[in-house]
């Protein structure tokens, strides 16, 4: 049911050991890890990685996804212990284990052997974190991005009008509340007649 893309291991540990590595490199490498369910989005697009904590020779440095703080701080792959905080999209999402494994693989390819991936629930993940650039990628891929802000009161019984990602028509209808994954609903365009996935507000 779930197609899995094994990421290409970019970089070569022999080379990177010689170069100076800093925190911005960690973020750039994580940028190559994609959501196995929606391979056009990276785990950073999705806001799944919240922050990285780096312990290097007793010194703790924290870098948040938001603003990628402390990006220029150097990191030594040989000593550094990395703690990567991720937040699940849905609690039962089967992609989370895979994403954790891909994070460790990607960082291992750059010489980091001490990497722990830890789940955090607070603040709860929301589709509001998906930036416009990623929404554009979703449309190109044929998935309609979330149409409004994720507010619980509004989600209940409010019908949203969803734009067809293929022909941009707003003349669409919902076929099923749950689509190919928990995060998507199934819609149909009444103009171009194509069915499509809609990424639900969450």
């Amino acid at each position: 049911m779930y197609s899995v893309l094994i990421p290409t291991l970019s970089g070569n540990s022999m080379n990177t050991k010689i170069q100076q590595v800093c925190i911005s490199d960690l973020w750039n490498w994580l940028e190559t890890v994609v959501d196995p369910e929606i391979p056009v989005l990276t785990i950073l697009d999705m806001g799944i990685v919240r922050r990285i904590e780096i312990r290097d020779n007793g010194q703790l440095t924290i870098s948040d996804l938001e603003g990628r703080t402390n990006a220029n701080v150097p990191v030594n792959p040989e000593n550094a212990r990395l703690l990567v905080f991720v937040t699940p999209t849905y609690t039962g999402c089967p992609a989370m284990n895979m994403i954790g494994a891909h994070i460790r693989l990607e960082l291992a390819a750059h010489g980091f052997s001490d990497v722990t991936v830890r789940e955090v629930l607070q603040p709860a993940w929301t589709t509001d974190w998906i930036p416009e650039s990623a929404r554009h990628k979703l449309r190109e891929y044929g998935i309609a991005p979330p149409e409004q802000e994720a507010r619980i009161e509004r989600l209940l019984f409010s019908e949203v009008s969803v734009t067809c990602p293929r022909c941009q028509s707003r003349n669409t209808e919902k076929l099923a509340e749950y689509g190919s994954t928990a995060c998507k609903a199934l819609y149909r365009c009444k103009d171009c007649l194509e069915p499509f996935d809609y990424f639900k507000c969450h």
Partner: protein
Amino acid sequence: MRDFLLLLADNTQILGHRLGEWCGHGPELEIDMAMTNLALDLVGQSRNYYQYLAELEGKGRTEDDLAYLRDAREFRNCLLVEQPNGDFARTVARNFLFDSWHFFFLQALCNSNDERLAAIAAKSLKEVTYHLRWSSEWVIRLGDGTEESHRRIQDAFDHLWTYRGELLTPAPFETEAASAGYGVDLHSIKPLTEDKLADILYQATLRRPEDGWMQSGGKTGRHSEHLGYLLAEMQYVQRAYPNSVW
């Protein structure tokens, strides 16, 4: 805290398992996928509670030990969630009775003074909002549908009504949890769930069954015979091949 966490974990685990039983048997492909997606959410939520409990215990037990190696008497779930799927109307009515309680329960649990519980509740609430929406829509569609669908969903509510009382009647450990500030005062959410129920039943042109004698006991480990059969299937692999792992 232990029993309260088990109540939350077992409710979601057992209902998740029941919905999983529909996999491959749904009346339509879309409904089949919806029910298994609901199951996935619920089992995911139960894992959060089991993991938390395992950490609090500190006895080296894991979430898997808690789900697979306890007997029926040690389960704290409400009787409602262990009731068999029956026909699709029975499943929809069971889910709606649960969701219309679960939604308001989680809203209240977001204010728990236990940070971890509040975080799990906030996360779960987003998912359960869609669960309530899904089951409400189906109650309306079946109730306000054909003569047969109306009869079947009405029968389902009549049959399951006796299990509804337990959702809103606190067990001693829930009263303790509410007064300690980490639990939920069930009296405070009762009017909210009653309103939701009345509204949806009205839209569905269904009759609210009479409140009569209500079943109870699940929360203190006295279950209907159905739970034993459910566990026999759910726990089969761990019981037959102890300590096997993926």
